């Protein structure tokens, strides 16, 4: 197809042509970045937790007043929960993945080290790994004789003796921590320091995500052998078959209430709810971004349709003359398609540059990675197709103009 006549005709509608180009460019730039943001959100919402999410329920209780017998109460609670039919594992956890409160500790490989090696989330609770259902890669899980009571640990830590027997001596780390601290080496038997206290690595789990501060290393988590007591933000976690969760949750609440009615239930939910509540803002943002992308593409497409219709109406006579001089319907159709293709191409080229600039701006302000190169060809194809689809209607109408129009005046 000859391009020159198209260019010369466009040059008579410079402003309108440029407006179409600008519109396509802006749409291209915004949609590329919006889709990229969507993909980032989707990745975040699908983050691997490393635990048996569909088998867990959470119950968080708070005491009314100070409980001197909290330790005994906790053991009774755990025993009662274990007795509920269908329950496979039970634990009291100090914190859990996908919650807003987080306990972290900076760790070192050598107590004299100036800067900490990394800051990791600490998970503790007897039988916690088994209840979470974390997958052991190498070594062993924590054993009963590894565990220390939380109050004794606190007292010993305050005492300042790094070799106090009341302090935990072993821990389990995630693969991510192992890879960061000792890349390519066997982590078993190596030491991690909490302050001046050395802890021996006895096991590595495949995945265990931290509660919330993912930017500091999403899977920098440690399992330490400490027994918490009920209250103070700790949660009972109960593992059971997926279809049993609602029944077990009800039975567990009844059992806990029977043991001590003077307690307030802060949370009672399945783990699926935990995940869905934690990521609700991301879900809303994703919905919004999708909505804006669709709206942008529709507005742009309708704009092309409208403009195409005008141009066709305006050139009816010229089209008639061309048809009378021997141009086929195909020629006319291709003319408008090529014209749209040209405009779209210029728009896409400018749009890509703009998309890259917006991405640089976002990287600066929103901790986003660089826009993957694949977005450019995909975005181009998308906008070309939308342009072609939008112009098809007006172009077909143009092709249907009969040659006889040439002989009529006004």
């Amino acid at each position: 197809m000859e391009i020159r006549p198209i260019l010369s005709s466009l040059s008579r509608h410079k402003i309108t042509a440029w407006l179409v180009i600008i519109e396509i460019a802006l749409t291209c730039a915004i949609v590329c970045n919006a889709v990229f943001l969507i993909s980032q959100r989707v990745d975040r919402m699908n983050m691997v937790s490393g635990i048996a999410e569909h088998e867990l329920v959470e119950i968080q209780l708070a005491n009314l007043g100070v409980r001197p017998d909290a330790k005994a109460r906790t053991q009774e609670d755990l025993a009662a929960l274990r007795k509920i039919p269908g329950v496979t594992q039970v634990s009291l956890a100090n914190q859990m993945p996908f919650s807003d409160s987080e306990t972290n500790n900076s760790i070192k490989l050598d107590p004299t080290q100036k800067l900490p090696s990394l800051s990791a989330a600490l998970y503790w609770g007897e039988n916690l790994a088994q209840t979470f259902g974390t997958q052991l890669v190498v070594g062993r899980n924590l054993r009963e004789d590894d565990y220390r009571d939380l109050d004794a640990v606190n007292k010993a830590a305050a005492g300042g003796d790094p070799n106090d027997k009341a302090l935990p001596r072993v821990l389990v780390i995630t693969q991510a921590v192992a890879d960061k601290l000792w890349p390519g080496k066997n982590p078993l038997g190596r030491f991690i320091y909490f302050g001046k206290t050395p802890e021996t690595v006895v096991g590595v789990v495949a995945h265990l995500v931290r509660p919330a501060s993912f930017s500091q290393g999403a899977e920098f988590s440690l399992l330490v052998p400490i027994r918490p007591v009920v209250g103070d933000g700790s949660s009972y976690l109960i593992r059971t078959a997926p279809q049993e969760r609602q029944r077990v949750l009800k039975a567990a609440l009844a059992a806990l209430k029977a043991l001590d009615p003077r307690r307030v239930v802060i949370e009672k939910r399945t783990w699926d709810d935990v995940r869905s509540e934690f990521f609700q803002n991301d879900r809303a943002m994703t919905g919004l971004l999708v909505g804006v992308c669709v709206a942008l593409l529709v507005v742009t497409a309708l704009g092309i349709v409208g403009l195409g219709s005008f141009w066709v109406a305006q050139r009816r006579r010229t089209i008639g003359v061309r048809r009378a001089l021997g141009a086929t319907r195909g020629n006319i159709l291709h003319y408008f398609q090529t014209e749209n293709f040209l405009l779209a191409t210029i728009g896409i080229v400018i749009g890509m540059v703009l998309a890259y600039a917006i991405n640089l701006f976002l990287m600066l302000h929103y901790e986003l990675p660089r826009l993957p190169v694949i977005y450019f060809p995909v975005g181009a194809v998308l906008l070309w197709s939308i342009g072609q689809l939008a112009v098809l209607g007006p172009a077909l109408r143009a092709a249907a103009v009969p040659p006889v129009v040439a002989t009529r005046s006004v």
Partner: protein
Amino acid sequence: MFGYYLDMALHSLRRNRMLTALMVLAIALGIGASMTTLTVLHVLSGDPLPGTSQTLFYPQLEPRDMDGYQPTDEPPDQLTWIDGMNLLHARRADRQALMTGGTVPVQPVQSSVDPFYSDARYTTADFFPMFKAPMLYGRAWSASDDDSKARVAVISSKLNDKLFSGKDSTGQMLQLGDDAVRIVGVLDRWRPNPHFYDINISGSYGPTEDVFLPLSTARDLKLTNNGMMNCWGGHNDHLEIAPCTWLQFWVQLDSPAKVAAYREYLTHYSQEQKALGRFQRPVNIRLLDLMGWLDYQKVVPSDVRLQTWLAFGFLLVCLVNTVGLMLAKFMRRAGELGVRRALGASKRALFAQLLVESGVIGLSGGICGLLLAFVGLWLVRQRPSSYAGLAQLDMSMLLTTFLLAIGASLIAGLLPAWRACQITPALQLKSN
């Protein structure tokens, strides 16, 4: 004349109903989206205490040990108990309050209501006058109540409604677990946004606490603390001596001279603590005012800013789209315009006529956009975020919307109208 132009415009718009609808809709969508996001941004980045905020300051000290020290470190966001108490008792500011968040178990007197947990704030006497917290009944507690660990409390009107059906409850006892405190005051409706005095609580835009207790009393009753806590060095169970920052401290300084003097005092205090061996790092203090502190803490969620950028990008595309369509439409009528010019209509008259036509589009788009903004804000309010309930259109935003709509319609109308007026009448007449 205007009436005639309006008639002409409506006539012309009726000729291409689909197209008119498309142009109005595009402008409406753009304005609706921008106004929704701009309103949310406006609400979230607003001043929580207009008229007072410029006299409120947030002192920061650097009490940490040399472990992990880097010269570029900012001082911690909060104070230790020792420093907080020292600054509080020094009374170098016009007013000062030390505080932290917590939760308390509330046991209603009526047996029909189950015990529940309420958010609480443990603070000192100046909190209420300094932040201009309005009292519905009674009064705040005094500094001597702080010193004597008095069993007193101020409660929110919400809790007062729930427990005492909105009656004056001062003098009544409030049962918190095993302990009871006497209610001395009931706050009137008060919800500063953001929750500036402790931004770590529920996403910075949470509601005001229901129970206010003297900090000393809360520590004495061993009530649960909430919020951020950062510790270094050795571990310690007693927060009063632990090397942990967990308290917020606010001061009121009424003149620039006092601000300078307080800054000097903080430096002096840090040097003194360093000489005592308590502080080890180089002296590093901050004294940001309220709005400066919110800015430093990046309180406005980045998602909200991103949404605003996105909405304005969308508006831009919608405007370009409308300008293009309108231009094409006007150019198509070149013949008609040429005839009118030849018959003696001035350029100005044509321009005015076309501007009326595009103005009608822009204005209808703006009005529809305003309606869409109301729908959009309603949608935002249905969302789960803590700030959702705040998304309301106020007078200033209504005015902004109106100006935006007029501006958008002018931009969308001026260029096409001007361009169409440049037609040479003779040429148009000849070509037909």
